[in-house]
């Protein structure tokens, strides 16, 4: 394999290590920013939850618990797969790394399909954001529209991040297959993987908030 290619750093960096360090720190700072982005809407959710405990319990109880839980397992598995792929690429096993990234992408796609199935189910029941739909003519609990609006807001934003993550992983996969990424440039895959893990971590918190309790 051609993994022994020595990469030259960009001209404003002294070494490739410095460049990789900068890229890694940059990604972490970006993730910190993402945490606060999701944090804002989660803080709003929590505040409404404290305000309307009963309505939010009703909302959680009505949610598609099984589908949401399966999705959690899907994302956890995908995270494990992409972590293994980084490990494989570092060890020079490019083919294995490629397969594992492909598996991650497949699992991510499954996640989105299940998510859309859930949305379809909600729409069928007459649950739309903003308290619109026939569901809310039967269920009046004050605060219930806020639960579902926030549900759509939070999962929608998360699904958007999943889509972005899938795009990034897709680009990385094609570069692995074209042998443009190897052991020496494994940090590029690592950055994509870190982003994917963040998407996973956010879902780890959305799951109990929206589906469990």
């Amino acid at each position, binding site marked *: 394999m051609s993994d022994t290619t020595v990469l030259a750093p960009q001209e404003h960096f002294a070494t490739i290590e410095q460049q990789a360090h*900068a890229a890694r720190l940059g990604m972490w700072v970006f993730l910190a920013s993402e945490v606060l982005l999701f*944090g804002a809407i989660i803080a709003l959710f929590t505040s409404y939850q404290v305000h309307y405990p009963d*309505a939010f319990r009703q909302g959680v109880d009505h949610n598609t618990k099984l589908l949401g839980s399966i999705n959690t397992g899907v994302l956890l598995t995908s995270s494990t797969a992409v972590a293994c792929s980084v490990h494989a690429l570092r060890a020079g096993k490019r083919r294995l790394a490629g397969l594992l990234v492909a598996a991650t992408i497949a699992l991510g796609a499954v996640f989105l399909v299940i998510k859309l199935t859930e949305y379809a189910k909600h729409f069928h029941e007459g649950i739309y954001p*903003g*308290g619109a739909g026939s569901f809310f003519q039967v269920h009046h609990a004050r605060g219930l529209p806020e639960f579902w609006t926030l549900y759509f807001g939070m999962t929608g934003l998360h699904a958007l991040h999943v889509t972005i993550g899938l795009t990034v992983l897709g680009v990385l996969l094609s570069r692995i297959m074209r042998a443009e990424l190897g052991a020496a440039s494994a940090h590029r895959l690592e950055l994509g993987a870190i982003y994917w893990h963040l998407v996973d971590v956010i879902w780890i918190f959305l799951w109990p908030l929206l589906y469990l309790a």
Partner: protein
Amino acid sequence: MTEATYLNARTTIRSWVLTTDHKRIGILYLVTLIFALVLGGFFAMALRIEHLTPGHTVMTAMTYNRSFTLHGVIMVWIFMIPSIPASFGNFLLPIMVGAKDVAFPRLNLLSYYLFITGTVMVLVSMFVGGIDTGWTFYPPYSSSTPTAIPTALLGVFVIGFSTILTGLNFVVTTHTMRHEGLGWMKLPLFVWAIYATSIIQVLATPVLGMVLLLVVLDNSLHWGFFDPARGGDPVLYQHLFWFYSHPAVYIMILPGMGVVSEVVATFARKNLYSYRAIAYSSFGLAFVGFLTWGHHMFVAGMSTFDAGAFGVLSMLVAIFSAIKVFNWTWTLKGGAVALKTPLLYVFAFLFLFVFGGMTGVAVAAMSLDVHWHDTYFVVAHFHFIMVGGTLTAFLAAIHYWFPKITGRMYSERLGLLSAALVFAGFFVTFFPQFLLGNAGMPRRYYDYPPQFQPLHIVSTAGSWVLATGLLITAIYLGHALFRGHRAGDNPWGSRSFEWRTTSPPPTHNFHATPPFDIDPYDYTQPLPGTDDDPAAEKEAA
């Protein structure tokens, strides 16, 4: 023979608009910012003229409401927030840490074009209905007004994205691109200030982005995140908004404080009274500044417990500013002080910022805030911080680094004159507004009872003096840009790192590897190889 500088390396338009050179991007920002300042200033002047008489003077109520909103939005997000970090931070930070560029030059350029995109969106909103909510966009008014809320708010959202990317770039640059041997405790204080600012930008701005998106959804799709009819709570919007917008005050003022530290040391030719205190207090402001947002909401219907907590936390944050002011003032003691234009602006900063800061503490004294909240007192207070602080520091920075950026020098006499005019004009404009606030005049009032007219006339007159001062500045700086005499590499005799290369600097910032092993504020001995060097002096003689 002219030296190769970043200015004459390549001169095509393409080489400017697609540049990844941090210095050129800094210049692009500077030009855009000055455009924004002029536009925001135009609205300010229009508002002041409208207030010459009660009721209708030159515009209708709707025009007035849109004008003060645009004045706020332009000044806050298109001028103040990016002002010093995006222009001078971009230009100087890599040089000050001894790097060839920022860590992610292409991201830097992207960030500029995001800024332009957002700015255009905000300006477009002017023509497709305007916005009349004030720069705070409080729902449910903002989610029900039929004006161009989505365009304007998405514009601010995009500008926020640009802010995050700029901050990210600076954080990573400061961490990973420092020259060998350049430890944290040897960094110029401007770097500390920009670094602390960047942390706030990265961590606070996403919250603003999120909450603006929610308001856009409320306004255009009626999702009702903050709509009381659907169980929403508008006070929660205010929490999220101020969680960003209070730290944003430090995004605006911290870089100005960095400028002050540099200017004071250079023109006093003396080490700072306490480097550590000034450096650490920047971090203090950055972090404790996040804990005080609720003091904007004492009468908003927040719980008494929360109000009390925010009140006491607000008192803690003020101490960091006090530390800085104290240390700057005492830096002058035992120095060799030359009252040049940048230092005169810094003196204006000191006085106005102390006054603005102390009145800020005053409004955090909770019972007083009940009377002052949403009156002209608050307007005067934050203009003392933002104009008296940030704009004054911005002007100090322009004058201090003008020879660095252009290689030319402006007229010192006109500089001192316009600085005096700006200070006087500012004071006459905004001091009466404290009194208006005491008298109870609420802000965002198109019409007002006649007893307030005398103070409004004084304020409007002051705004003309201020504008005159700024106009003179623009004229002589414009003249100096093309006709000013050559300034030399280090006209102020500063020890700081950015003056250790040629003025203007070459494309990659340094011709030879400069020594980064000295203290940038050490004036106890001559600097070898410069005009300061006794050997050079002898040679010249």
